[in-house]
């Protein structure tokens, strides 16, 4: 048996089964089938497959319909009342403000903490060097050694703070506290490196 090469006819065979062909097309297909064994065989296969579909269970229409909600209870998103949409937008905007505000405050506080940590680091380094029990060199000496003019006022007691505070008299402590009250919370610029040079054993 030769294979049929008329693909148009082959493609119309399922439509013939479902009576979906116009009169002219149906007559053309039937005329072809009368002489083509290959297409007759195809049609027989299609008939078998179509009729074999009966094993699908029958569906209880009423039970399906009972599960379908009435049309009015289904409210598509586009038909929500305008007021609901406005409230949703307001809630979303409020959340955005809270999140952005909180985030920026956190960032700012983190940044100031980091800068504080940076500004305190040299002070700690300074405090390690001189011995608080020994008299600290006068400011003029420090200036003459380095040849640089420090941009911040000298506070000899403050330099000794992280060292041994037990050796200070009550008067010195009061003076130290008063001096500390006068400090700025944050330095205007990076600490002057000349202070660490005063220790004499660095650089």
């Amino acid at each position, binding site marked *: 048996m030769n294979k049929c090469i008329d693909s148009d006819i*082959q*493609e119309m065979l*399922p*439509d013939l*089964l*479902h009576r*979906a062909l116009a009169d002219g097309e149906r007559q053309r297909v039937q005329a072809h089938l009368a002489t083509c064994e290959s297409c007759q*065989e*195809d049609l027989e*296969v*299609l008939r*078998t*497959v*179509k*009729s*074999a*579909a*009966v*094993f*699908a*269970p*029958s*569906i*209880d*229409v*009423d*039970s*399906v*319909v009972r*599960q*379908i*909600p*009435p*049309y*009015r209870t*289904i409210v*598509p998103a586009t038909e929500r009342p305008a007021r609901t949409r406005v409230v949703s937008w307001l809630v979303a905007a409020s959340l955005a403000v809270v999140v952005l505000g909180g985030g920026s405050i956190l960032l700012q506080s983190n940044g100031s903490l980091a800068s504080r940590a940076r500004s305190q680091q040299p002070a700690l380094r300074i405090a390690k060097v001189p011995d608080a029990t020994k008299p600290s060199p006068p400011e003029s000496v420090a200036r003459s050694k380095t040849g640089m003019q420090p941009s911040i006022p000298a506070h000899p007691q403050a330099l000794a703070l992280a060292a041994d505070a037990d050796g200070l008299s009550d008067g010195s402590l009061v003076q130290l506290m008063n001096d500390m009250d006068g400090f700025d919370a944050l330095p205007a610029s990076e600490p002057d490196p000349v202070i660490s040079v005063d220790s004499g054993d660095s650089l």
Partner: protein
Amino acid sequence: MELINRWRAGDGRAATRLVGRHSQALARFAASAGERDGIEELVQDTFVRAFASLDSFRGASTLRTWLFTIERRLMLDRRRAERRSRETVPVEESDHVSEYGALDGLIAEEAQERVRKSLDALSPTQREVFTLRVQQGLSYKEIAEVVGSTEGAARVHYHNAIKTVKEFLKDE
């Protein structure tokens, strides 16, 4: 569209007529596509989902084609879920026995059994295209819409499928 509009207007009988008109076709498509259990539930879910989103149906395709598309998506979801559960829960030997027992009850005639086997020899897409074309009488354009493919690809799947089925039935 008339029945749809009547249902929207509150006519409950319109829903009954729509379900009655398409439910068996959906059941046959599910059975042909390899579904064995829960076909009624699948058809029901298809209608519930379809009626819930009926406003998105514009009538560009036939309602039946649109329903097939929804049902097919549900079948794919089911298979994915089954695959996941198979990966976690081992299948008991008794499950196989009960499945084939139920299937034996459903398939009464030998010819039907042979057809089922021949369809099982197809790839999932070939089987869908072939059954939609032969058992449901959909055009290639409609089939392409249901399976998310092109008309040309649907034609190729159909021709490959009929060749395989024909050979299978001849050899049996």
